[in-house]
């Protein structure tokens, strides 16, 4: 809801300012937008499908079972991979992480999960590639994954 309000108020302000300055250029902006949207449409649909499939298969209960069944280092790698693949809204992810922590998962495992969840987006990669290129996407997600593991290690030692 906040998202929608923020984006549409930005758009409203931008559009009014643009229309006042030049109708011609505003039209051009719409043309660019339409073209870009059409170009991105296939990857948008792909992302939608993959998000549905991963969240349908990896429900909160399944994740708890998977992460809870393992312990130590294996659990941390598991959590990192699940976090990297899924796109869970933070309102669902943080309560899940909290309950995993209370049911005995280590800080390292939970921080690996949370950090890869927010830093690495495997399912949104098709869209990222369309907008930013293959190399950028692979590097950002790959290095992000490694960074997340390092962060998890440090947090496990410090907390």
């Amino acid at each position, binding site marked *: 809801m906040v998202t929608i309000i923020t984006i549409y108020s930005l758009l409203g302000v931008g559009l009014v300012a643009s229309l006042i300055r030049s109708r011609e250029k505003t039209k051009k902006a719409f043309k660019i937008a339409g073209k870009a*949207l059409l170009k991105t449409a*296939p990857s948008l649909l792909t992302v939608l499908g993959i998000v549905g*499939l991963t*969240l349908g298969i990896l429900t909160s209960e399944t994740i708890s079972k998977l992460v809870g069944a393992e312990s130590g280092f294996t659990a941390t790698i598991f959590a990192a991979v699940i976090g990297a693949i899924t*796109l869970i809204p933070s309102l669902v992810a943080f309560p899940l992480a909290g309950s995993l922590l209370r049911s005995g998962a280590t800080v390292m495992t939970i921080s690996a999960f949370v950090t890869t969840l927010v830093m690495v987006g495997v399912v*949104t990669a098709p869209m990222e590639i369309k907008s930013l290129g293959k190399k950028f996407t692979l590097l950002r997600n790959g290095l992000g994954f490694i960074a997340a593991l390092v962060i998890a290690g440090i*947090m496990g030692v410090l907390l």
Partner: protein
Amino acid sequence: MMNILKKFRFPILIAFVFIGLAIWIPDTAARSSQVTWDYFKEMALIMPAVFILMGLMEIWVPKDKIQKWLGSGSGIKGAAISVALGTLPTGPLYVAFPMTGSLIRKGASVTNMVIFLGSWAALKIPQLMVEIKFLGVSFTLLRFSLTLVALLLVGLLMETILRKNPDKIWLENVSEEMEEKNPGKIKM
């Protein structure tokens, strides 16, 4: 026709996976379809606005300003602007990709854009509130600061790598788009 099929090969493939699931594991299929439908509604509402904003940015935001504020010479100030822009409550990460593409075309540095995307995904203020509630203040603060350092390092590393081996295919696609926008100017 073949062209359209080729463009939509992944969505079509996924549709088949859904059909397969519906036959063999109907429970999972139902859950997956529900999630996809929810996200579809959200995207249908958000994405057109995002792309129009991107179009307005392409037209109005001057290149030299972006280079000055977010380019490779912008230093700590550029990084700080990137973090500040990223932490605003503006929704899921896929909203940021088209914007980031536009900013890079206008001369923003790779480092700053990695920081921007990273803060957008990992350091959102409303999200931090939820994190504090469920995982505690010390966990959240430590993750916040470590993530910030990591983003800076990843960004600098990526800038170095991409400067040595730029993404040729992407750059070509972009220059093609630019030509389309100025018909007659560079037409052969």
